[in-house]
């Protein structure tokens, strides 16, 4: 079976420190998969490995059956994997519209084109405006992205992540720092924009995780100690002992 994303015995060390210690994980196409675990477990590092920000020390990572470990982020992005970051990562001095327009260009085939005007590209305009509508920022079209509220910037980053039409999307703590109402809004947005796509998210808010995920993997000290359906994870004694007991009680 070809998985949307498949990690086999992935290790990552920084000097003597082993951060990821043999992670094996298969995510089916269309699955909503959450990765949870205590701080310092290596969740963000795992995302960095998958998205090409850093290369694994050993092991393999495959996207739709094709190896992507060792590739650069832009090569992985072109193969259909996109991501958001734990700390908001947008183009801060460009407008909302420009942020989205830059994010759709490659996928629409304009690449490094310097011989045609961008204003005349109807498909680029339509796709950017459609995305803006989807993430609810149409009224903020010409605002500098860096001046948006935190929740709006997070929404914009999700917009950037989905702009290229990637079918595997990684969201790193998309609800971090949000109020309850903002979280509900963001959750609805994520559900809407990732419809039919493979979603892998790191999140500390357990209500979100159990609400969204089809399957949950628990990462503790660089190893996955359990990977199962939410109900099974909730009952898993090892998970409760290592993480969930504290997280839910918190």
């Amino acid at each position, binding site marked *: 079976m070809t998985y949307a994303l498949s990690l086999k015995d992935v290790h990552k060390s920084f000097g003597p420190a082993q951060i990821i210690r043999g992670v094996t994980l298969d995510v089916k196409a269309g699955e909503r998969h959450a990765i949870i675990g205590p701080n310092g477990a290596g969740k963000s590092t795992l995302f960095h490995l998958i*998205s090409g*920000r850093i290369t694994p020390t050993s092991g393999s990572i495959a996207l739709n059956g094709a190896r992507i470990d060792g590739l*650069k*982020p*832009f090569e992985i*992005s*072109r193969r259909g994997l*996109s*991501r958001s970051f734990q700390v908001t*990562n*947008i*183009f*801060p*001095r*460009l407008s909302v519209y*420009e942020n989205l*327009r*830059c*994010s759709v*260009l*490659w*996928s629409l085939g*304009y*690449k*490094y*084109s*310097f*011989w*045609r*005007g*961008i*204003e005349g*590209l109807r498909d*680029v305009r339509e796709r950017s405006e459609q995305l803006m509508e989807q993430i609810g920022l149409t009224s903020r079209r010409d605002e500098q992205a860096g001046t948006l509220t935190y929740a709006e910037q997070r929404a914009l980053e999700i917009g*950037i992540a989905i*702009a*290229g039409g990637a079918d595997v999307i990684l969201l790193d703590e998309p609800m971090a720092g949000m109020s309850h109402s903002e979280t509900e809004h963001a959750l609805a947005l994520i559900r809407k924009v990732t419809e039919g796509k493979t979603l892998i998210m790191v999140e500390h808010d357990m209500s979100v995780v159990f609400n969204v995920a089809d399957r949950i993997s628990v990462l503790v000290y660089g190893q996955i100690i359990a990977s199962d359906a939410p109900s099974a994870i909730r009952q898993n004694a090892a998970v409760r002992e290592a993480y969930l007991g504290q997280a839910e009680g918190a």
Partner: protein
Amino acid sequence: MTSVSRALPWLLLAVLFALLPKVLTSNTAITMLSMMSIMIVFALSYNMLLGQTGLLSFGHAVYYGLAGFLAIHAMNYIVRNKLGIPLPFVPIIGGIGGLFFAFVFGWVSTKRAGTVFSMISLGLGELVAASSLILRGFFGGEEGITANRTKLPSFFGYKFGPQIEVYYLIAIWAFICIVLMYALTRTPFGRMCNAVRENPERAEFVGYSTQRVRFIAFCLSGFFAGVAGALAAINFEIMNAQSVGAAQSGSVLLMTYAGGAGYFFGPIIGAIIITYLQITLSDVTGAWMLYFGLLFILVVMFSPGGIAGWIMLHAPAARAGQLGRLAPSYALASIPMALSLFGAIMIIETAHHQLVKAASDGPAMHFFGLALNSNSVLTWAMAVGLFAAGVIGLRLVWPRISDAWGAVSLARPKGA
């Protein structure tokens, strides 16, 4: 925006290029206009790196200078071999030369951004500057290489002997280059340059190789710098080692930064002002380089967006019709500003006279028609006093400017 309103600024620019020599008719003025036009192309090419892509180069004169040398060799080759290439096509040779050298050097330097890129550009600049005194065959040593533009085949009867004909040749090329460089900012590639400048990591995660974006921008910038270099070769009929040196690289950085790297028209303003000052100040004072250093420091400290940034700061107020509210406070501030400027210039000129000229010419000096003694306490006290009075006056007036801006902000409709 209609196509007419889009075309209007370009039409005005073309008219300006065409009519300026009719208004400013002296030879000096036409020479200055020619230099300004060349420097506008050079500064805009530099801003493709600094303002558009976020690459701070300390060696941009390499592409300007090397292309200039190529152009001057090409002119001599055309004359020697009686080729049928007229002068107006020489800038294309310069552009291709600039592109070639940018391709070769950019292959190495654009692999990294930030400080590493800047240091490589500095190293390459020094390498070429040092080579210019060693490879005498190509660079002509300290004397440089000369050419005679009038010996090239005529172009519709024009031999380009008189400066006015050269001016129009330069102006047409400058106009074409300005339009092309502006058009480039309005392409998918131009937008991705901005994206790479803003956040290279995010640009990679939307599918772009930031290294490739930097490299293409560098090559295109080299092409336009090469055109500027060839225009300089045509204008001066000589190229020497200075044209590839650090001073030339520093000069284009100053033009771009002082003008405002954040706006397309910023380097145009910078090129015009700095070229004007370079030509006029060097005739007036021996300390002219010091003024450029001070200008650069003042812009960095007080207006990091350059002159264009300062102008655009007023755009929302102008749109809201509130500019008049700022005028009284600005008029008031202009008095202490002029005082401090006068005092600062007096300090510099007195110091320059005392340190450089007094030993041979004596302490008597002339400053704006005033007979002064650079060795006199009174002169120094007057200079320092004027400067201090100006600075204190500015500090006193500052709250008025601040209040005026506050009133403008309150009166402005949201979003204006």
